[in-house]
C-alpha cells in the first residue's frame, strides 16, 4: 500500500516536472519567435504589396492639370500610380517622359498618375513641368509628411495601387516604358478593360 502511494507521488512529481519544463520551453520559444518576427518586419515597416495604401492629401501644383488638391482616398475606383520623385534625381527624370506618354491613354482607362515631388522649393518643380510638358497631377510635399508616411528612402519609388486602394506593386528605381505599361495594365480597373 505504501509502495503504491510512493509510486503515485513519484509519478505526479514526474508529470509536474514535465509540465514545468514544457511551460519554460514554450515561453522561451515564443519569445524567440516573437523576436524573429519583429526583426523580419523591421525591414519593411513601410507599406508593401498587399497593404492598403495610407491616405493623404496634398496640394496639386501642375498648372496643366485642373485639380487643386488631391486626396488619395478620393481616387478609389481608379488604378493609381503613386510616384515619389524630385527634380534633381536623374532616374526620376528619365521615367517622366514615359509617364507622360502613357498618361492620356490610360487616364481614359481609369488610371491616375500621382507624382509627389520631394523638392524643397516650388519653382524648380514648375521648371521641370515646363521642360517635359507634364499634364498629370504633381503634388508638392513641402512639410515632408507623406515622405515620412510612406518612409521613402532612395527615389524614384513607385507604388501601383488598384481600384480598391490596395498596393499591388512597389518599384524601387527607374522604370522603362514597357514595364510601366505592364504595371498600368495590372492596376487597370476591371470595368475599363
Amino acid at each position, binding site marked *: 500500500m505504501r509502495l503504491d502511494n510512493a509510486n503515485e507521488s513519484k509519478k505526479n512529481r514526474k508529470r509536474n516536472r514535465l509540465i514545468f*519544463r514544457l511551460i519554460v520551453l514554450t515561453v522561451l520559444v515564443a519569445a524567440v519567435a516573437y523576436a524573429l518576427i519583429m526583426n523580419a518586419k523591421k525591414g519593411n515597416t513601410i507599406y508593401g504589396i498587399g497593404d492598403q495604401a495610407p491616405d493623404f492629401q496634398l496640394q496639386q501644383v501642375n498648372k496643366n492639370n485642373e485639380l487643386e488638391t488631391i486626396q488619395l482616398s478620393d481616387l478609389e475606383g481608379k488604378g493609381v500610380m503613386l510616384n515619389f520623385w524630385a527634380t534633381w534625381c536623374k532616374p526620376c527624370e528619365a521615367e517622366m517622359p514615359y509617364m507622360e506618354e502613357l498618361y492620356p491613354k490610360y487616364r481614359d482607362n481609369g488610371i491616375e498618375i500621382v507624382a509627389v515631388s520631394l523638392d524643397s522649393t516650388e519653382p524648380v518643380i514648375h521648371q521641370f513641368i515646363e521642360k517635359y510638358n507634364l499634364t498629370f497631377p504633381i503634388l508638392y510635399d513641402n512639410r515632408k509628411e507623406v515622405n515620412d508616411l510612406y518612409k521613402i528612402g532612395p527615389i524614384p519609388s513607385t507604388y501601383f495601387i488598384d481600384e480598391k486602394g490596395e498596393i499591388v506593386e512597389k518599384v524601387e528605381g527607374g522604370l522603362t516604358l514597357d514595364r510601366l505599361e505592364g504595371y498600368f495594365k495590372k492596376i487597370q480597373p476591371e470595368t475599363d478593360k
Partner: protein
Amino acid sequence: MNKIKCECGHVNPEGTVLCEACGKPIEENQHIDGNNQKRLLNMRYEGSSRRSLTYNKSIIDKIWRFFSSVKVGVWLIVIALVASTLGTIFPQAIYIPENAASRDPAIYYEDQFGIFGKVYYQLGLYDLYSSWWYMILIALIGISLVICSIDRFVPLRRALKMQKPKRHETFLNRQRLYSVSTNISHEDRHHLKKMLKKLRYRVRNEDGHILAEKGRFSRWGPYVNHIGLIIILIASIFRMSPFLYMEDYVWTREGEQKVIPGTSGEYYIENKEFIIEMYDEDDERFKDAIARMGGRAEKNFQSNVVVYKNTDVSVPGAEPKLEKVKEGQIELNHPLKFDGYALYQSGFQENEFSNMSFKLYETNDPDQKAIENFTVDLASPETEYKFDNGLRVVIDKYYPNYYLDEDYGEPRSESNDPWNPAFVFKVYSPDNESPEISFAGIGRNIDPTGENQYKLGITDFETHDVSGLSVRRDYTLPLFGLGALIFMVGVVQGMYWQHRRIWVHPKGEGILLAAHTNKNWFGIKKDIERMIAGTNLQMVVDQQTTKKNNEIKEDNDE
C-alpha cells in the same frame, strides 16, 4: 528510477553524488563529479543531483538536457563570438557611406573589397547582426542561460537546505581543509563554539556535531546575475516593437517648420536657431590644445527649437493645426523631451544659403552702379521681380546646388540643398521685345549672347545652419537599467562574499575538523586559526597542496 537511501536514513534523489543530509559519497555515482579518481570531494553544487543528468525520457526532457549543459552553453558563446567577429571584417550594410558609388550591397562589397567582398555579401555577413541565424544563436544562448540556471539552482538550494550538522566521516576527511585532534577537553569544545559565534558563523548543533556556516547567500550570486541578463535580453526583444522603441533622424533648417519623422505626423518641429560655440583661441589655457586641433575646437552645439502638436492628424499632408507643445534648447547629451519622445543634437551643416541679393546694372557702366536691387529668398523663391521703371526680372531656372552635368551637357542641381545656388534670369525691359538671358551664381556671371544691355551681379547673401536631430522614443531603457542593476547585484553578491563552512565532528575523545569555502581559502584558514588559538586543536591541513597525486581543480559554481 530509484531513490537512494543513505545509511544515515536520508532518501536522496537519483543522481545524487553526496548524500544531501550527511554528505557521505554515494558509491555508484562518484563518476558523475569525478570523485572516484580523486582524494578530495568535488563540492560543486554540493554533489546534488542535477536533474538533467538523470532524466532522459521524453523529447522535452531531451531538449532540456541539451540546454542544461554548461558545455553546450560555452560552445554557443564561442560560436557567437566567432560569428560576431566575422561581421566586423567589412563595414555592415547600414554603414555603407552615403557617397558610395552604389549603396546597393550586392554591388558595393564586390566593388570595394573584390572577391572577398563578394563572398562576404553572398554569405549574408553584410547584415549579420539582424540576420535570422545570428538572432537564433543569441536566443539559444538565452535559452541555455535560463535552463542551466534552473537546473542548477533548484537542486543546489535543496541540498543546502537539507544539510545536517552531523556529517559522515568520509565527507570530512575528503575535504580540502582537514585535521584530526585527539584528547580535546570539554572547555576547548565549548571555546570552539563560542569563537565560531564570535566570528559570526551561524552555528548548528546536533549531538555534539557542529556545522558553522556563513555567507550562504553568496552562492545565489550567479543566479541573480543570470536573472539580470535575462531581463536585459527581454528588454532587447521589447526594443523591436515600434511602439516601445523608435529611432529616426531629421534635418531642420533654421526657420523651417517640418514634421518630425516617426511620429505619424503628430509632431512638428521648428528650428529657431542653431548655435556653435567655440573655445576662445586667445585663452592661455586652451591655446595649445586648439592649435593641435587645427585652430578650431567646438564647445557647444545647440539647437533652439519649438515643438508643435498637430491636433488634426486625420489626413496626412493636409494643412496641419498646430499647437505649441514645448520650446527649448537641445545640446549635446541634453535632449529635448516631450510626450515620450526625445530629440538629440546629432549633426549640423553650416552656412547654407538662405537668400541672395542681386543688383541690376548696365553692361557698359564701368562703375556697375545698381539700377535696381532685389533679394531672392532661397527657401521659397519668388519667380518675378517687377520694378517701377518698367524693368522686370524673372527667374527662369533655379539650381539650388548647381553643377554642370557632363551627361546631359546642361546645368543641373545635385540635390535639394541650397549649397551652390545658381540662376538663369530673364530680364524684360520696355525697350526690348524679347527678354535678355543671363546666368548668375557664386563666382559666375555669364552673358550667353554677349549682347546683353543689362547685367546681374550678386551684392550680398545670408546663410543659415541646418541642424541634424535624432528622434527617439525608448520605453525599454528602464528595463535595461533594471537588468543591469540586478546583474551588478549578482556580481557583487558572488564576488565579495564567500560561502564558508566549518564542520566539527566529535570522535571518541578527539575531534575531526573540516572546512570548505567556495573562494578565499586564505580567509577561512584565518578564521580557523583564530578559532583554535589557545586550544589543543590541530590546525587544518590543506590537503590539496599536501597530497601529491591530487589534481583536483578548483571549481566555481558557475
